[in-house]
């Protein structure tokens, strides 16, 4: 057990936690009864994926991707791969940050849409529990 933890889990501990968070979110998305809980699970699922993307860009011993001083001119083109790589190793990979930055803000806008749909459902059926909702929908007359 301890050996398994040290060899398999510890090097990828972050990834394991993201997978667990994703499982928690997915489980609540399928199994929870309340619609607001489902939306919360969706948000947790989303943050787990964003966490995964951001951790792809982590470099050991690197600083934040904001340049403190002007990069040396000799680095020049990417063709000088050795010097360019050595300079770039000092900064975290900015590409996942850019992609996920917009994903978070779009995520809150779509969260608003989901909550608005919840309010409309509540106005129509006076409940947010899934089983009651299904019962009330089945009880509706056919021509509605």
């Amino acid at each position, binding site marked *: 057990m301890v050996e398994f933890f040290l060899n398999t889990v510890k090097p990828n501990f972050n990834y394991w936690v993201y997978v667990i968070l994703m499982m928690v979110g997915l*489980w609540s998305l399928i199994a929870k009864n309340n619609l607001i809980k489902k939306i919360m699970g969706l948000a947790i699922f989303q943050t787990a994926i964003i966490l995964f993307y951001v951790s792809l860009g982590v470099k*050991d011993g690197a600083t934040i991707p*904001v340049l403190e001083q002007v990069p040396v001119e000799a680095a020049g083109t990417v063709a000088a791969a050795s010097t360019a*790589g050595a300079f770039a190793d000092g900064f975290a*990979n900015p590409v996942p940050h850019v*992609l996920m930055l917009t994903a978070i803000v779009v995520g809150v806008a779509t969260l608003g849409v989901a909550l608005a749909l919840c309010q409309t459902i509540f106005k129509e059926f006076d409940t947010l529990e899934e089983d009651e909702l299904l019962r009330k929908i089945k009880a509706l007359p056919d021509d509605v």
Partner: protein
Amino acid sequence: MNPKFFASLAVVITGFVLLYGVSDFPGFGDPRSPANAGVEGGSPSASLHYINEAYHDTKVPNIVTAVLADYRGYDTMFETVVIFAAGMAIFAILRCVRKDEEAVVAPPAKSSIDGDHNRIIVGMTCRIIIPVVQIFGLYVIAHGHPSPGGGFQGGVILAASFILVALGSNLEDALSRFSEKNYLTLASLGVIIYAGFGVLPQVLGRNFLDYGVLQKLFLTDGPEMARYHSILGVEIGVALTVMSILFAIFANLSSRGTLKGGL
């Protein structure tokens, strides 16, 4: 068999497959991983180009801002459009109240915080703190080049300041400062500013969102400074859209689309 059993089964299988995939990953924080350095023998990762060249191309020290608004400007533009579309969706879902419902929902509105001793501390604190929050939001938008920040963050902070007005006193107070007409106008204006920065280079004979050619317009020395200033303009457009749409979402959600009463 209850449905929770099947849910647990599906989740456990998914989790097991993902955990099996994790064991083949490059180590956490490895600077030589494919995402960070490119495939061995193949072309180097795009991130190396961004880190090495972003400052030469745009004079922006914050690489994230440079990539967000310049290299991947097309992407960011349509993210802004998605936010705008989400706002319009909420408008379509909630903001259609029938005449008879409107009369029922509207509670007797309290005129101001002065007559309500329970809310006076919250109201006064909000009144003092809101200008500070708004100035910080403007600082975050304008200072996105040399430090973390930019249009998205600043826009959210500005929206939070208006939401604070609504929470501190009531929704009518917030709407009298930032009315429905104003926020819809500003949301459209933000998208138009962004698209305008895309179309301007086209008018001058270059590609869409190729800011470098704007140096004739901004009278800057060199295309780099033109890019620098265009990024600021684009961020302002993003901030206007995000601020307006997030406040619109809150105003509609908290009052069930009637824009009366609120929380």
